[in-house]
């Protein structure tokens, strides 16, 4: 095999420019794919991180049916005290869960005594909310970065629309599940930015204030946001949680709880999916580039060397050795391209990290792209390219090995 390698490599060197061109094509393809995977992966992670860490959490649990009518924030579909107890027990049983945050959500009227508007109020336990979505505090653009009793964090949209400043007095009026209307006065503690872009109407109060407005004697929860310790184990955590909760059935025999990961909660999942689809397309393009350029160069190599093939066949070289000779040429082109492509990818990714490319997402600005080459991606891309290189050489090599020596020798 080593002896065939020597001949194959020398034949590549013999047509240096052509081999160089082909390897360069392969290298550029590998470079492009690896950098794309690294950059898009970084973008995706930042995006997912932003959504899950500043608003959604990784997993949310609702009462079954809540998600279907989430637009009206139905108080009738809250989890009652008994259900909350069961949910908390289940959560505590799963060590991979880092934190969870129960939320009461309701729609209400918001007034600064001059004008009014509607608002979505989230009643949360401040510490639990912060532990579950660690970027929460970074969304507070004005005022103190806390949620105190008697204070409200109002969305930027309402603050500008109603010209409200920090420490202004406002009132929240809401209807509870029994139909009685109640109001409570708050001091504006801060202004909070929306994650998904303008239009967010989410305000935050302490959960006990929420209970007071809704006149709840016993706590009822609209949703629980859950944070896992290791994001890559998200699905398994969801499955365990689901398994533990699925024992709880309602009167109709359906499960009480509805457990969803962020993917089922945010339209941004589709963007993440689209990035994945694009990656697949780019990989297919790479395969096509490798296949076409190497097949092309190998067809030329076989055609140019017909007499040589005739000679070595005549003096007794077995067909499989002739086949190997040309396969090794294809392989060498691919391997060279892969090595060079990987090196270039390392350099480009390194430079991208140095120059710190920034981008904006939603209302957040100044995300720094931190592309990262993963060993798995490198191995996968390299292996695919090398295998495709050999496959690309297969047809021409097979043709060479099948040549009749008499005819090949007669070839001019």
């Amino acid at each position, binding site marked *: 095999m080593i002896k065939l390698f020597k001949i194959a490599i*020398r034949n590549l060197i013999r047509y240096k420019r052509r081999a160089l061109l082909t390897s360069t094509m392969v290298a550029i393809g590998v470079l492009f794919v690896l950098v794309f995977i690294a950059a898009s992966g970084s973008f995706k992670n930042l995006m997912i991180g932003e959504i899950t860490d500043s608003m959604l959490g990784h997993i949310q649990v609702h009462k079954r049916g809540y998600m279907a009518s989430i637009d009206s924030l139905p108080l009738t579909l809250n989890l009652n005290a008994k259900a909350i107890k069961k949910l908390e027990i289940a959560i505590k049983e799963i060590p991979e869960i880092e934190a969870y945050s129960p939320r009461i959500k309701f729609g209400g009227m918001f007034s600064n005594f001059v004008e009014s508007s509607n608002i979505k109020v989230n009643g949360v336990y401040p510490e639990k909310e912060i532990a579950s979505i660690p970027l929460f505090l970074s969304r507070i653009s004005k005022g103190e970065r806390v949620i105190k009793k008697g204070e409200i964090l109002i969305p930027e949209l309402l603050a500008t629309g109603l010209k409200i400043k920090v420490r202004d007095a406002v009132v929240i009026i809401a209807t509870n599940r029994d139909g009685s209307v109640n109001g409570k006065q708050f001091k504006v503690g801060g202004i909070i930015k929306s994650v998904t872009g303008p239009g967010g109407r989410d305000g935050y109060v302490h959960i006990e204030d929420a209970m007071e407005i809704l006149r709840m004697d016993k706590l009822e929860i609209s949703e629980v946001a859950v944070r896992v310790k290791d994001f890559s184990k998200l699905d398994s955590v969801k499955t365990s949680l689901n398994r533990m909760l699925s024992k709880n059935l309602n009167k109709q025999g359906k499960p009480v709880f509805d457990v969803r990961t962020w993917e089922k909660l945010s339209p941004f999942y589709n963007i993440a999916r689209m990035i994945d689809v694009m990656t697949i397309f780019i990989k297919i393009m790479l395969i096509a580039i490798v296949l076409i350029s190497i097949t092309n160069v190998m067809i030329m190599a076989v055609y140019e060397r017909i*007499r*040589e093939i005739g000679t*070595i066949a005549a*003096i*007794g070289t077995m067909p499989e050795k002739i086949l190997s000779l040309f396969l090794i040429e294809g392989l060498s082109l691919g391997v060279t391209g892969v090595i060079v492509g990987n090196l270039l990818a390392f350099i480009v990714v390194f430079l991208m990290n140095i120059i710190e490319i920034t981008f904006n997402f939603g209302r957040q600005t100044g995300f720094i792209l931190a592309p990262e080459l993963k060993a798995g991606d490198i191995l996968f891309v390299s292996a695919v390219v090398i295998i495709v290189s050999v496959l690309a050489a297969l047809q021409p090599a097979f043709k060479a090995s099948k040549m009749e020596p*008499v005819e090949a*020798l007669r070839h001019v």
Partner: protein
Amino acid sequence: MSLIIAKNLSKTYHSGEIEVHALKSLSFEIKPGSFISFIGPSGSGKTTLLNLIGCLDKPTSGSLKVANVLTSDLTRREAAAFRGENLGFIFQDFNLIPVLTVFENVEYPLLIVQNVPARKRRERVISLLDKVGMKDQMNKFPDQISGGQKQRVAVARALVSNPRLVLADEPTANLDSKTAFMVIDIMKKMRDEFGVTFLFSTHDPKIVGEVETLFTLEDGMLSSRLDGEGGNND
């Protein structure tokens, strides 16, 4: 015991509608150690005959035995193995492998075809290059040496694997007459030294003085056989 036994050997080519009877029922025998030439004008069937004897092609009818093997019955793979084992080839255009040095070209049959261990290989290659007078050029590439030198390297390559028979189709056609005689001379010396049978074709009547047995081919038929000095045929 004859090395080659041809009986009623015929070869017909079909090119479209036309049938070309390149060889018409040839029968002959050749003893081991002979130095033989087939002479005849272009188109008389020399290449066709050498291709048959060299197991590169199959007769349309008749039988051919080379080294006791009925080569007309061999499969493609068996024929390749047979060639690598028993035959050496010298070509009109030298056909050295351009990416290999003189040494590596001669080494090729031992390395790729026969798998001889490195030390033995080196000894054998160098001794043969020495015999054909090309030892001092062994690290050159084919494009760095002359035509006559290339053909001497080709002679060494044909002999390196210790074949029973060396076939050379017009080995001197691309050489000037002085070089041609030198190459024929070397081939003859090799025959004397190794007892290998040499069988070559030529259309050049000038060289025939050098051979021992001369077959004349004309229009696909053997028209005469001349056994000269040293020839051990009856």
